[in-house]
C-alpha cells in the first residue's frame, strides 16, 4: 500500500536532543526529515527518521510512547519549547504533521525538570509521580470487602467533577511546563479525584497531607503561573489546585488528635 496521493508532504529540519546516558553530556543533533506526509503523526515522522538513521548505520533516537492514542501518558516531548507541542489539549502522539509548515525547523527536547532525570535521548524518569500516589492516592479497601455499588448514591455533578480530575494521564507535562518544575496539577488531580467522592472521605485528610508532603520532597513549589494548565493535554482545571490547597490546610487541623470529633 502506498500513501494517499492527495496528501501534501513536508520537508523539515529537526534539532533533536541526543544524550547517551544519564551521566553523559548531551547536545542537539541536526537531522533532516524529508517527504513527510501531512497525514502522519509526529511520532510516525520520528519513526521514519529512525528508519533512515538505522539505514545509515546510526543509532536511532530513543523516545517514550505506547498507546499512540493520547491515553497512556507515555509520550512526552518538548516540541519547539512547548510540552506536547503547539496544539492545545493534544498529546505528542496525537499531534499530526499537518500542523507544521514545510521548511520549518523543529526543536525536540526531553521533559526538562530536575526531578525527571534524563535516561537517554528524549526518555526521562518520571517515577516520582508514582511515589506521590503511593503516599496516599488510593482508597483503602481490600478486595471483596465492598458494599453494593448502588448503596451510596453519588450526585452526578460530584461524580463528573471527580471524573474530570481522574482524566489525568500522568504524562508529567505540567511539571515540564512549569518554570519551577512543580507537580501541583498532577497531585491535585490525583487527590481530588478521590477527595470529591463520598468513598474518599474517611482518608481525606490523611491523604491530603501525605500526598502534598511527598510531592514537596520531589518537586519545586507552585507560584501560580498556570503554565501547567496550558500544557495539560487533558485540560485539568486549575481549580483542583485550589481545592488541594484548601484540603491540605484543613488536614493540618483535622489530623490532630481531635480528628473525627466534629
Amino acid at each position: 500500500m502506498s500513501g494517499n496521493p492527495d496528501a501534501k508532504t513536508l520537508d523539515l529540519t529537526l534539532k533533536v536532543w541526543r544524550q547517551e546516558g544519564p551521566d553523559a553530556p548531551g547536545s542537539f543533533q541536526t537531522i533532516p526529515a524529508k517527504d513527510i506526509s501531512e497525514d502522519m503523526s509526529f511520532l510516525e515522522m520520528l519513526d521514519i527518521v529512525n528508519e533512515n538513521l538505522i539505514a545509515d548505520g546510526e543509532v536511532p533516537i530513543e523516545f517514550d510512547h505506547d498507546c499512540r492514542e493520547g491515553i497512556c501518558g507515555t509520550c512526552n516531548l518538548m516540541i519547539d519549547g512547548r510540552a506536547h507541542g503547539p496544539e492545545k489539549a493534544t498529546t505528542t502522539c496525537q499531534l499530526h504533521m499537518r500542523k507544521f509548515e514545510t521548511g520549518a525547523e523543529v526543536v525536540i527536547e526531553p521533559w526538562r525538570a530536575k526531578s525527571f532525570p534524563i535516561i537517554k535521548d528524549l526518555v526521562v524518569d518520571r517515577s516520582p509521580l508514582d511515589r506521590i500516589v503511593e503516599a496516599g492516592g488510593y482508597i483503602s479497601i481490600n478486595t471483596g470487602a465492598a458494599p453494593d455499588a448502588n448503596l451510596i448514591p453519588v450526585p452526578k455533578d460530584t461524580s463528573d467533577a471527580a471524573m474530570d480530575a481522574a482524566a489525568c494521564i500522568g504524562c508529567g507535562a505540567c511539571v515540564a511546563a512549569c518554570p519551577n518544575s512543580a507537580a501541583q496539577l498532577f497531585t491535585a488531580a490525583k487527590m481530588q479525584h478521590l477527595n470529591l467522592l463520598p468513598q474518599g472521605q474517611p482518608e481525606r485528610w490523611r491523604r491530603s497531607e501525605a500526598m502534598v508532603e511527598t510531592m514537596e520532597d520531589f518537586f519545586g513549589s507552585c507560584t501560580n503561573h498556570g503554565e501547567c494548565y496550558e500544557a495539560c493535554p487533558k485540560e485539568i482545571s486549575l481549580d483542583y489546585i485550589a481545592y488541594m490547597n484548601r484540603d491540605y490546610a484543613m488536614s493540618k487541623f483535622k489530623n490532630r488528635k481531635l480528628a473525627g470529633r466534629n
Partner: protein
Amino acid sequence: MTVPDAKVPAGDIGEKWTNHKFSMKLVNPNNKRKFEVIVVGTGLAGAAAAATMSELGYKVKVFTFHDSPRRAHSIAAQGGINGAKNYQNDGDSIYRLFYDTVKGGDYRSREANVHRLAEASVDIIDQATAQGVPFAREYGGLLDNRSFGGAQVSRTFYARGQTGQQLLLGAYQALARQIAVGNVELFTRSEMLDLVIKDGEAAGIVTRDLLTGEVQAHSGHAVVLATGGYGNVYYLSTNAMACNVTAAWRAHRKGAYFANPCYTQIHPTCIPASDEFQSKLTLMSESLRNDGRIWVPRDLDENRAASQIAEDERYYYLEEKYPAFGNLVPRDVASRNAKTVVDQGRGVGPLKNGVYLDLTEAIGRDGIETITEKYGNLFDMYERITGENPYERPMRIYPATHYTMGGLWVDYNLMTSIPGCYAIGEANFSDHGANRLGASALMQGLADGYFVLPYTIGDQLAAKLGTDPVSTSDPVFAESIAGIEDESKRWLSNKGTKSVDWYHRELGKLVWDYIGMERDSAGLEKAITEIPTLKSEFEKDVNVPGSGDNLNSSLEKVGRVADFFELAELMARDALAREESCGGHFRTEHQTEEGEAKRDDDNFRHVAAWEWTGPDSTQTRHKEELEFENVALTQRSYK
C-alpha cells in the same frame, strides 16, 4: 502428553465455583507471608492479582516493561465493562450474562469458567466503585448503564469513553497501597524473557533491565503471567505499540500449551490506514454503531463526496442483509461484511479502504448537542487523526485487529500446563471461546485478578508450605541467563541491512492476508511456507544498532518480533487444522449458503492446545473436549 485435566468441578453450573472454593486447600493467614509470588504484568489482570494477593498476605514481586504500572495497555479500553447487576431491571441475571457469553463465543468456551466469570462480574462493579472509579451516574445518583455489542440488556458500566483508564487506575492505586506497605516489590522497565523450570515446575523468571541491560534471576513459589494479548502479530492493530507475546511464548517454549491461537478478533470500527508508515490503528468506539448507519456507494466507480450521493445510490449493506440486528450485528459479522464490500471495489476515502459510518441522521434526529455529548471526544479524535470534520462528512472506518481470544491454555484454577505457572487476563485463552463480546475483556481481566486467581493459587501453594523457592544461584537460572545474554549478543552482532520494524511490517502483511478476517486452506498453506522463509531472512538480515548495556528499543523489539514469527506459523497451523468456521475464525470453505460461519460441532467442539516440541519440529495439537450441559448449541443468526 495429552491435555492435562481442566479440573472442572462437578455439580450444578451455579454451584461449581462455590463448591470449589470450599473444597480447595487453604493457606492460613500467617503462612501466606511465607510464600513469594511473581506477577508479570500490571494491566487490569496483573495489578488486580498482585494487589489482592498482597492484601491476603502473600509476598509479591511484580514486573512491567512500562515505566509505571499504570501505563499498561488496559488503559486504552474505551467502551465499558459488563456486570450482571440488573440495575436497569431489564431482566438481566448472572445466568443471562453466562448464556450470552457462551453463545457470543460461538460455543467454543468452557461453560464452568464462563459462569464463574458472570458471578464475579457483580463483585467487580462493587469493588471498583468502592475504590473510587467514577462510573457514569444518573441524576438520582445511581449508576448508569448502556447496552453494548449486540446485548439485548443494558449491563455495561462505563466512565465516559475511558473505562479502561479508570479501572486500571483503581487497580493501580490498590497496588500502590501495597507497594507503600512494602508487601509488593515493583520492578519497572523490566522485561521477562524466560520462564525457569526446575523438576517440572515453575521456579521463577529471568528478566532484562531495559535501562542497564542487566539480565536478572527472580525466583518464587509461583509465577503468574498477566502479559496481555498478541494482536500486534499483525503489526497494525489497535493495541499499544509495545504489546507482544514474548512472556507467553517463552512459557510456551518451556512447556505451557498454547490454545486456539487462530481465534483473533477484528474490530469493525477503526480509522483506516493512511499510508505505509502508519504505526497503529485507532479504534472508534463501537457505541457509535448505536447511532450511526454504515454504508458504501452502490456504484463501483463512485467519486463524489458522500453528501452528493443520493439515498437510493447508497448501499446500507448491514441493514439490508440483517434486518433484525442491522448495524448492531456482532463484531465478526460487521467486519467481514466491510471487507466484502471493500474487496468489491466499493471502498471510500482516498485509498478506497473504508466504509462510511454516518451519523447525519442521528444529528438531525437528536440534535447536534446530544450527539456531541455522547461522542464529542471520539469526533475530536477522528478529526485530529484524519483532518476531516465528522460533523460535516461521514466518518470512514475499516476493521482492524483488536483482541486475541487465544492464549496460554489454563485449567479451571487458571494454571497453565506447567505446575506453578498461571496465566490471567488476555494472556490466557479461557472465557471468550472463538469470539469476545464487547465490554467483556475488562470484566475477565478483573475477575481473574481480583476474584479467581488469588484463591485458586492457594490450592497449589498449600502443598509447598515449609519449602523455600528455588535459589537463584541454582544452575537452572544460570543457564537461562546465559541463554538470554547470548541471544542479545547474537542480535547485536548481526549487522544486517533492514530494521526490526521493516520485518515486523512484512510479517504483519502475511498474517493479515492469510490469517486475517477470512482464511482458506490454500492461503494458510502459503503462510506455513512463507512465514518461516521470511523468518530465516529476518534472522540473517535484521539490523539491530546500538549496544546491550543501555536503553535500546531495537534490541527490545527484535526478540519480540522473533517470537511473533513463531506464533504466526502456529496460528496458520491452528487455522488450517480447524476445518470449520466459528466466531472470529472464518474459513471460506465452511460457510452457510447465506455466507455465515458454519461450525462443525461433531468434529471441532474442542479447544486446540498446542505443545511445543522444539524449534525445528511441528508442534503437537491436543484436544480438550468441550461439554455443553446448560447452553444448547445453535447456529448463530442475526437476520
